């Protein structure tokens, strides 16, 4: 069975190589090849999953060692895979949602002349993401980590002829690189501390390292997670990343890649559990981001950017849960999976709307679309109900558990975190209701002459339906007898939190804030007509539209500052460093032209010099003698 693991990665990798190097002759079949290989990978994953279920909980982890990768002195990195319950969960999510989105893209990208290349990049992404979750050591994880960054770069910038897309792609890669710096420092720290960076030995030895070291490792891992998962302060790239084609936003920037940070933290649980300070930093980042993303999501009129804010916020929930330690890991992953379903579904729905609306993204120019796109409306609506945590749907189960766990942290911290999570739930309900109302309800705010909204083809709607089914039932299924928690327990361990408020009260409170959020949204956008041009709005709204001024800060401090720095350095390099060299050369030249003046050409002056020289020589000889 172990030998199948490499096949998971190999299938999409072969696809990427074929499609990217295959040239034009694959233009007509490329998308089928790409989708087929994604589905093949999913099939392998299902086989491995079935096999895993047949074994006892403690014997489920599989290990495959391919070859020794970098052996230098005490430094050994291997190409080796590890498939345990946590990886399995991710593999199923990645290949499952990935396959659906491949199929959806066949329709969505139908008219793009570079469709073959698009599928090549998607396959490359799948391979890198699978590598990330299957690696058995941090360095190989790092390969996948940067690999998904590359795929994300290529896909955000897929429509490169648009300068905005190219800039967004570059920004995403750069911000991610800052995070990657954290990951590489973490690996270096692990190497100097433990002499290895393979998961098993590091986690086994973590207890022997000093807490200061572990905290340092935890903090740099958090930096890495912030970059990949768009957490404050490295969140600024996610909104711009919506420049990419919508299936990309659904797969990479909602369901899978951006959750890699949560995977990293959960995987490194053994380190974080021993470093409470690092854990505190994690929960703070999570709590801040969940509010930050939610607030940004409220103000955006671009449907994809509103969803991006929501993604950020939901990942904030996951990071918060992962920071809580064993009482939260399982719920973080559970929310991650359910979020994968409903957020991918929502994005695909948004893509379907855009597909029917000539790629218009401004929600103020939608309205009343439910009559024209019934399937999209129903699937999007189910996703909506799931994300706000409507009782019985997926989001309800996973988010509720996270809020409970936040309270269970105990003390003042518990109240603050729980409160933040509750507030986040209210805002989530508000902005999602706003998206729903502005898009599908109300009067049409578009010109019927110009737009002809229509339902998308089957190849697009079927994946949406599948994801909607997942959004409805996944959470409930996972919660039957705590199935999901027990499935993950051997890897992440699990502890029951002791909440100061009972579970029932938390659920009730969640329901109340949910109702409030939906109600306010209905008052603002359902009852009243939505203006087609955005009103000026309050100070907070305007700030939120600009991503709470974080971009402006980056621009002024980093971009401008960096530009000035490089310009100064270029000038200094020319004038100071090179100037010193050229100055030396010029000084030599000047000196020699001065000395040249001594050569007058007059024989008699030469004769004087000779005589003088002779006299000096004689005098010197005599003086030397005298001494």
């Amino acid at each position, binding site marked *: 069975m172990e030998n199948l693991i490499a096949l998971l990665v190999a299938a999409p990798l072969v696809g990427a190589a074929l499609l990217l190097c295959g040239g034009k002759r694959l233009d007509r079949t490329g998308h089928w090849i790409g989708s087929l290989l994604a589905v093949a990978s999913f099939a392998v994953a299902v086989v491995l999953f079935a096999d895993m279920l047949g074994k006892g909980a403690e014997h489920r982890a599989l290990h495959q060692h391919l070859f020794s990768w970098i052996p230098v002195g005490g430094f050994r990195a291997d190409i080796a895979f590890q498939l345990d319950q946590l990886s399995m969960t991710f593999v199923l999510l990645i290949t499952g949602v990935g396959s659906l989105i491949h199929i959806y893209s066949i329709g969505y990208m139908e008219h793009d002349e570079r469709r073959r290349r698009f599928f090549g990049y998607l396959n490359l992404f799948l391979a890198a993401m699978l590598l990330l979750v299957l690696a058995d050591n941090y360095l190989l994880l790092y390969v996948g980590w940067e690999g998904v960054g590359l795929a994300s770069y290529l896909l955000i910038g897929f429509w490169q002829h648009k300068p905005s897309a190219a800039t967004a792609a570059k920004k995403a890669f750069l911000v991610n690189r*800052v995070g990657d710096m954290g990951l590489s420092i973490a690996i270096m720290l692990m190497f*100097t501390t433990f002499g290895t960076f393979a998961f098993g030995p590091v986690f086994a030895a973590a207890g022997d390292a000093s807490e200061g070291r572990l905290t340092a490792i935890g903090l740099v891992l958090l930096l890495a997670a912030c970059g990949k998962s768009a957490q404050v302060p490295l969140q600024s790239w996610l909104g711009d990343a919506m420049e990419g084609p919508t299936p990309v936003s659904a797969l990479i920037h909602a369901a899978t890649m951006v959750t890699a940070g949560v995977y990293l933290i959960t995987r490194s649980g053994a380190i974080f559990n021993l470093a409470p300070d690092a854990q505190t930093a994690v929960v703070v980042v999570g709590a801040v981001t969940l509010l930050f993303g939610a607030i940004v999501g409220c103000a955006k009129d671009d449907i994809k950017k509103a969803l991006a804010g929501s993604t950020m916020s939901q990942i904030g929930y996951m990071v918060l849960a992962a920071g809580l330690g064993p009482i939260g890991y399982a719920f973080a992953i559970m929310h991650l999976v359910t979020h994968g379903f409903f957020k991918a579904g929502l994005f695909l729905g948004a893509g379907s709307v855009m597909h029917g609306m000539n790629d218009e993204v401004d929600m103020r120019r939608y309205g009343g679309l439910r009559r024209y796109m019934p399937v999209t409306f129903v699937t999007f609506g189910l996703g909506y109900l799931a994300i706000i945590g409507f009782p019985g749907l997926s989001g309800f189960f996973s988010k509720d558990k996270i809020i409970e766990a936040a309270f269970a942290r105990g003390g003042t911290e518990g109240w603050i975190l729980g409160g933040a999570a509750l507030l986040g739930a209210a805002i989530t309900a508000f902005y999602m209701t706003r998206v729903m109302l502005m898009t599908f309800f109300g009067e049409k705010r578009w010109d019927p002459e110009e737009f002809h909204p229509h339902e998308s083809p089957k190849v697009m709607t079927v994946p949406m339906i599948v994801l909607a089914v997942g959004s409805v039932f996944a959470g409930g299924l996972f919660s039957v007898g705590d199935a999901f928690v027990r499935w993950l327990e051997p890897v992440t361990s699990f502890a029951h939190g002791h909440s100061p408020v009972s579970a029932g009260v938390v659920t009730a409170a969640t329901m109340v804030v949910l109702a409030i959020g939906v109600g306010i949204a209905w008052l603002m956008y359902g009852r009243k007509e939505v203006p087609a041009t955005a009103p000026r709005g309050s100070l907070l709204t305007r700030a939120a539209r600009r991503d709470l001024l974080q971009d402006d800060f980056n621009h002024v401090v980093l971009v401008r500052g960096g530009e000035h720095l490089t310009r100064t350095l270029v000038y200094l390099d020319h004038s100071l460093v090179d100037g010193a060299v050229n100055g030396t050369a010029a000084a030599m030249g000047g000196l020699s032209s001065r000395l040249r003046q001594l050569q007058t050409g007059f024989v008699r002056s030469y004769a004087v010099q000779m005589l003088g020289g002779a006299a000096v020589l004689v005098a010197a000889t005599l003086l030397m003698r005298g001494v």
Partner: protein
Amino acid sequence: MSFPLLTATAVVPAIGAIATAAVPAAKRTAAKWLALLFSLATLSLAAVIAVRFDPGAKGPFQLTESHAWIQDFGVRYDLGVDGIAVALIALTALLIPFVILAGWHDADPSPSSQLRSSRGGPNEGAEPNRPYSWRPTQGFFALILAVEAMVVLSFEATDVFLFYIFFEAMLIPMYFLIGGFGDRAGGRGEQQAAAQRSYAAVKFLLYNLVGGLIMLAAVIGLYAVTAHQLGAGTFSLPQIVQARASGALTLGTGTERLLFLGFFFAFAVKAPLWPLHTWLPNAMGEATSPVAVLITAVVDKVGTFAMLRFCLQLFPEASSWATPVILVLSLISIVYGALLAVGQRDIKRLIAYASISHFGFIILGIFAMTSQGQGGATLYMVNHGISTAALMLVAGFLISRRGSRLIADYGGVQKVAPVLAGTFLVGGLATLSLPGLAPFISEFLVLVGTFSRYPVIGIIATLGIVLAALYVLVLYQRTMTGPVATEVRAMPDLKVRELVVVAPLIALLLFLGVYPKPLTDLVNPAVQHTLSVVDKKDPKPTVRVDAVPGGGRHGGTAQTQDVEAAK
């Protein structure tokens, strides 16, 4: 006596240089094929060296050859290779055929005689009225082969004096290559271009000559010391290392430091290390891109190689003494080179500054004095050679199409020439050390090696990976993406010859990124030997882990070896 393989590897390109230069003026194409043939013959000899070399064997040098040369001064014709030298000889022999192929048309005589007469350089006065009376094409390829011969010999020499001769002599063909054959990026007057070219060539020559002369003083000093203490003066590296180890030769602290500085200065100019770097952007900017590859990927490697082979092994104590300063300088190189690369407007100068940043990494790795650092630095030399060659040669193809080196003159190339853009991106990604490509491994090893001894320097050097992403992606964005610029609308995609140049380099980058073991196996024993001469050991991890081979799932028992004070 066995076949003198090492000599043959250097002699073949030398004969090739003479043969190519002797081809009659009219038969330019024949000269090109001849040069290519000789470079391929050298490559196969280098392959034989790599096969015959046994990494596990005892003794520092293998395939040795030794002949008396100038007996009065103890100068010997001593050749020998260790793993590092084998890797670099292989790199050199591998890159030269690509350089020749990429420069296939770079030295074709231009139809306008005005251009020819302003070309400057060695042939300026030669009969201006008869077109094609001089033979630039033959000269170009002959000079490239001559450089190859000298570089190979300086990798092989184990006699300090012999090394010095070829270290200096390679300046002469390089001077003519830079000054005589500029790229044909129009936009400037030919006259002005020729002036800038000769400025760059003279700067290159003077810089390196100054370094070389200081080194010559140190070489003589070394001879004097050995003559004084050993009775008979010697330049033999193994002999000196052995004499120092056995105590027969003791250098005073001051003497050793001075000699070390003399050697190091020359290598730091060649490498180049901040603040001795300013010749490189000029030289790489003005030269044709194959020559730029020759400079940065091949010739400069002699500098870093010589630091490992001569500076560290001849003067271990002085090397330790100078380490802090050198580490700081290389750190400055890394950050400074990257920042300046961001600020460049000229594609080739940008790549030159990127190279300065990468050389900073190499020197950092060498002087971190850990097996990861030095192993990484050696791999870095090889990988940087390949990745820069890929990026620079594609950049050269791009520049020759548009006739401009300015980044601002491009835009949207991706749309009209996707293969060119794709290969350029892969070259760029290799330059920014993307995992999965070869340079990542070397860069990470250097960082780990540095970090394990000097954490703060390691962390600051890590900044380099962010800055590398910045300059590569900015370059890619400005040239390849966005709306298609008017002038590039009719730009053709890569031709077969160009693809033949780039594709193997990219394949190699991928292969060595996934499976670098052949290279690490080659290099590791040599690095261990160097470290044992310098008398340094890798720092021990603070927590000892009995790692399961292959990084098994659940490691064995863990025992604490608490080096740092327990919390």
